Structure formats: C-alpha cells, structure tokens
C-alpha cells in the first residue's frame, strides 16, 4: 500500500454514517479503493438500496478524498455485485451500535431478538419498519422498554 492509499483509508475511517453513530468502514460500506496517480476511485456497498443517506455518504466521501493533498479526482460509486451483509460489520462497529441501544443480530435476521437493556429474549415485534429503513422496533416484556434492532436486508 503506498502512502496515498494509506491516507485514503485513513480518511475513510473518519467518515460517519448520517443516521447512526458509526463510521462507514465499521459499517462495512467500503468495497474497494483504487489509486491511480492522483485519481481515486472508491466503490461502496449500500446497506439498503433506497436509503436516503446514500447521497450524503457519497458526498462526504468525495469531499474527504478531495481534501487530501495529492488528490485531483475522486470517483465514488455504489456497487451491487456483492450484497451488504451483517458479516461486513466490524467488532468495533457492533460495539458502537450496541452502546447506542440497538440490538444487532450476529449473522441472520431470523435469530431471536435480545433486549439491549436487560438481555431478555421475552420480546415482541412492534414493527418491521422503524425510524430508518435499517431498523425495526420491538417491545421488551421483561423490562418493559421499547427498543430498536438493526434490520439487514432479509436472509437469502
């Protein structure tokens, strides 16, 4: 990895998702980076195709790349050749989401939800469609708290 490529990854690690407290690298959005002289291309994997944050993220990444010394052009595009899955989340990303009060399934949506406040599995689905496309809402019967759960695109 040359110095510019390292700098590009360094800056990608600082770009935050606009809807959740997590960086785009911890969320697993970055598919690959190509450095060609002063030209950078970054391909991103969307979590949800209709997510309204996609344009914001693209502009944040472009802006961050163009601010790097030695970068003249930055192309940022979304790719669909490999889907986003829960496996793309880093351990640190999971931890940040958990601290934010989200239940995050380990590998599959079909796993039983767990209340992030008291750890109970005695929970009920409130709605598959929560405050953003990537979150569902639940109620914990044990501690009586409402909570949210990260909703990945359905299990294949």
């Amino acid at each position, binding site marked *: 990895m040359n110095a510019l490529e390292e700098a590009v990854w360094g800056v990608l690690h600082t770009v935050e998702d606009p809807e959740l407290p997590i960086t785009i690298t911890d969320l697993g959005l970055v598919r690959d980076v190509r450095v060609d002289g002063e030209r950078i291309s970054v391909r991103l994997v969307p979590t949800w*195709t209709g997510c309204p944050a996609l344009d914001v993220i693209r502009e944040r990444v472009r802006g961050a790349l163009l601010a790097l010394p030695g970068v003249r052009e930055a192309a940022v595009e979304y790719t*669909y050749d490999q889907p986003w899955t829960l496996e793309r989340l880093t351990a640190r990303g999971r931890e940040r989401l958990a601290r934010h009060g989200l239940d995050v399934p380990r590998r599959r949506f079909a796993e039983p939800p767990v209340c992030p406040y008291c750890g109970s599995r005695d929970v009920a689905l409130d709605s598959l469609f929560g405050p953003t496309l990537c979150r569902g809402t639940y109620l914990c019967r044990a501690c009586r708290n409402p909570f949210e759960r990260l909703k990945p695109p359905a299990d294949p």
Partner: protein
Amino acid sequence: MPGALATIADPAARAAFREWLLRAADDELIIGHRHSEWTGFGPDIESDVALSSIAQEEIGHARAFYAQIAADEGGDADALAFSRPLAEYRHGILAERPNGGWERSIVRLVLYERYDAERLRLLGASNQDPVAGLARTLLREERYHALFADAWLTRLSGGSPEGHRRVQTALDAAWPDALGLFERTQADDALAASGLLAAPPDAQRRTWEASVRALLEPMGLVIPSALPGEGGRRGRHTPEFDRLHAEMTEVWRSDPEARW
C-alpha cells in the same frame, strides 16, 4: 460505470431488456408514489411509517433501475423518471390505481410483491450483470414488504365478516389489473428468444399464481375468474395516471435543472 445494456450485442435483445428494466423501474416508481400517499393517513402509526418506508424503498429501487438505463444512454435517472411523455411509461395499471381504502392497498401490495419477487428472481438468475446483482439485492429488501402485506391481509380477512367481505371486494377489483402485469408484448417474445433470462418470461405467471393461491385460499378468499386488464405495458394508462403524473412531477417541472 457501464450500465446493463452495453454488453448486449443484439439490438432486438437489447431493446427488449431495456423494456423490462423500464417496466420494473416504472412499476416501482408509480406504486411507490401511491404508497407515499398514505404518509400521515395510515390506520396506525406503525402502518403509516411502514407504507412510507416501503414507498421510499420502491422509489429507491426505481432510481437504481433508471440509473442502469441512463448509464448507457446518457441523461440521468430523474429525467427518465419525470420527463417522458405519459404513453412511454410502462408500469402495469395496478400500480397507478388510486389507493381507496386500506384493504385495497393491502390487497394490491400482496399481489404486487409476489409479482415483483418473481421478476427479481428471473433477473437475479440471469447473466446480465450488474442488473443480476442489483435484482438479488432488491429481492432481499422486498421480502419485508411481503411480510407486512401478508400479516395485514391475515388480520383483515380473518376479522369480522365485514372485513372479510371488503377484502374479497378489493381482490375482485384488483385481480384483472394484477393479471395485466403479465401483459405480453413483442419485448417478451424477443427476450424469450434471446436467452438472456434463465426462464421464459411467462414462466413467472404460473409461479406467481400458485404462490398467491397458496396464501389467499386458506383464508377463505375466492380467486376471481377475470380477463387481464392490459394496456399498461404498452403505455395505455387510465386518466388517474395523468393526475398522478402531474402531481409527481410538479416540483421537478418547476426547475428541471435544479441540483438538490
């Protein structure tokens, strides 16, 4: 990034595949617009948010399909979505019908989501990247729409006799339009001949009907016998679409060059 069409050498096959992408995009845009009309009017807060989210996803899917076409033809997704003459829209009539009561939107959602899933499976199994990858991704997102629709249909049809009767009436009204989604044009014949899809397009009609029957009949609902209400795939729409289109494009028309 090249789009979906550049790699298809045969002009007839390319035109047919474009027509399929346009149908998918237009179906999603128009039904998404109808779903968005529930924002603020859903029967409870969860359903209101659900239909608004489903609308947002469908319009996002439309944008992704339009972008595939635009990548090879110049222009952009917005221009394709908003600036074509009405007769160039290829969505099924089902998508443009006014919402009416909640049970009508739920019945339409049930029928449409199963249709869309069959289409995405066909596209996803084709060798046409990047559309195939996009279709496989969308199929996983659409799954939640079907779960929502099925749960509501179960609730409405299994409630009072009045509820059941209203669902049956909605089904009777929607059925010809649902069959119209499968309207066959020259594009389908050309696509079948091209071998671009893993199965001929009309194979999806049989799997769709089997899947719909398996859901509806155990609820005591009667599948109507009706002729398909066609026209949409050839650009023949109802006056309701004129009104929808005028409203949908109002902001865009006020300044087509605006950047947001």
